[in-house]
């Protein structure tokens, strides 16, 4: 049995959590997603996951607490870590021009990198979307190169613009809406990560990959205009491993 070290906790009257004692990894994420899928077949409730936890909300059952825990254990035990859907890769265009990434100069100074080096390192990895949180459609991404780690800003910005691509601590992310934020804005994408009017409001799903690529100001302008006129989605392909 994989990932057998976990504990079940109760949160309030009707929420139940399961917490695994492992470091976050893509393998664990796949397993959590598979467990989530199995749980949702038995429990018709809302299920949230993060790096190492799953939470079931509003669980109303007639069985005892111990029977419920046994049922969770049984489901976890029999889950095969094979998610039913193949992950996608979303190719996200980013303009790293200082006029759009307002903190890029402060950031490159603090990390002793040139803007070109930053772009090269930031666009290289396949980032994994672990889960959505903080803001609607905000993906928690893993995979930032450690050369790009930088403690978040001491004083958060009051308004980080929608579409800003930023780095904070060991993470990188994209702001789906205008929001206060403590990360360094290094660029901007014209792609809308979240739009409630779309059939699928959030571009990303947990387990997907994101890959950034650099565009110049002219291309950014062009895509932004296009995005205003219609719903521009990035190039997305199925990840074949």
């Amino acid at each position, binding site marked *: 049995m994989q990932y057998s070290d976990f504990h079940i*906790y*109760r*949160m*309030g*009257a009707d*929420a139940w*959590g399961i*917490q695994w004692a492992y470091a*976050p990894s893509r393998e664990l994420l796949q397993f959590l997603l598979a467990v989530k899928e199995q749980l949702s077949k038995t429990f018709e409730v*809302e*299920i*949230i*996951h*993060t*790096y*190492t*936890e*799953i*939470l079931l*909300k*509003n669980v109303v059952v007639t069985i005892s607490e111990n029977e419920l825990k046994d049922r969770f254990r049984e489901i976890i035990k029999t889950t095969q870590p094979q998610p039913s859907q193949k992950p996608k890769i979303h190719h996200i265009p980013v303009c790293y021009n200082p006029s759009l990434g307002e903190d890029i100069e402060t950031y490159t100074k603090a990390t002793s990198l040139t803007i070109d080096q930053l772009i090269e390192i930031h666009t290289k990895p396949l980032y994994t979307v672990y*889960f*959505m*949180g*903080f*803001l*609607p*459609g*905000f993906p*928690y991404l893993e995979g930032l190169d450690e050369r790009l780690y930088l403690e978040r800003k001491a004083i958060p910005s009051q308004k980080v613009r929608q579409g800003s691509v930023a780095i904070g601590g060991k993470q990188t992310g994209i702001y789906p*809406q205008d929001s206060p934020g403590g990360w360094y804005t290094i660029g901007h994408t014209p792609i809308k990560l*979240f739009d*409630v009017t779309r059939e699928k*409001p*959030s571009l990303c799903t*947990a387990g997907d990959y994101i890959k950034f690529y650099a565009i110049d100001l002219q291309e950014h302008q062009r895509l932004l205009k296009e995005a205003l006129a219609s719903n521009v989605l990035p190039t997305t392909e199925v990840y074949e491993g």
Partner: protein
Amino acid sequence: MKDSITIQRTGFYTTIQDKGRFGYAALGIPESGAMDRKAMLLANALVNNDEYEAVLEYTLVGPTIEFHCDRHFVITGGITEARLQNNPIENYTIYLACKGDILELKKITKGCRGYLAITGGLQTSDVLGSKSMYAPITSSRHIHKVTEILVGATTYGTAKGARIKVPKSIEDASYLFQSVLKVYKGPEYDFLSSHLRKYIEETSFSISKLWNRMAIQLEETVPHDTPSIRTGPVIPGTIQLTPSGRLMVLMKDCQVTGGYPRILQLSESAMDIVAQKKQGDVISFLLAD
């Protein structure tokens, strides 16, 4: 022409709320919904609405409303000074407003949030299964001045112009005066030292100036060395302990994940009680077994 009301003045902070948005937390979308769920359910029940029909939730000072149709209505939750056509009216009592009537909801004298249910319910469009206002899911985060809102067909009985007084047993606003919040242990409760647990159980906390539909921060700080956690799921009613030692009570518009230790979880009845607290009000915690 469709039946409607117009919000002439908005009051301090007024939103449309229903049960909330479920099934979208995995996209990072908050639950939302009425802060004082009990008051919303009661209001809808009294005017013969479905229990989760959309209502107006107002804060501290209520809105002024013009009716463009005849509708029964009721106000519940925080005790509100109210006037219909300039005549004082009571809370927890059903009235009929006629076309052209002006309903003024003024100051809340006890509690923090009031609920206005109109028979037929408020008929704004559903966004992801709910009418609850939360930007950017709905286009505005609260109601603006001179907003016209459609109301549904009335389902209320035949009483014309009747003022129906609700039985005393239903008119139960005693929770507005309660200050003890029943809580459960949160997933990180065990991280707290025994000294800290005792302190939290024995302290009277007051509501700080930072309170809204996302969270209510408590004034008193708790000195501690509990580390932050790896970002985990949170839900309305989760109480987090911030690095600076503040207790943060997450409310209906809270994020779906958080990185501070989740030390306590409010019971549902405690959610209704704390939803009626404003800056300076005092609360304490009673740990359930």
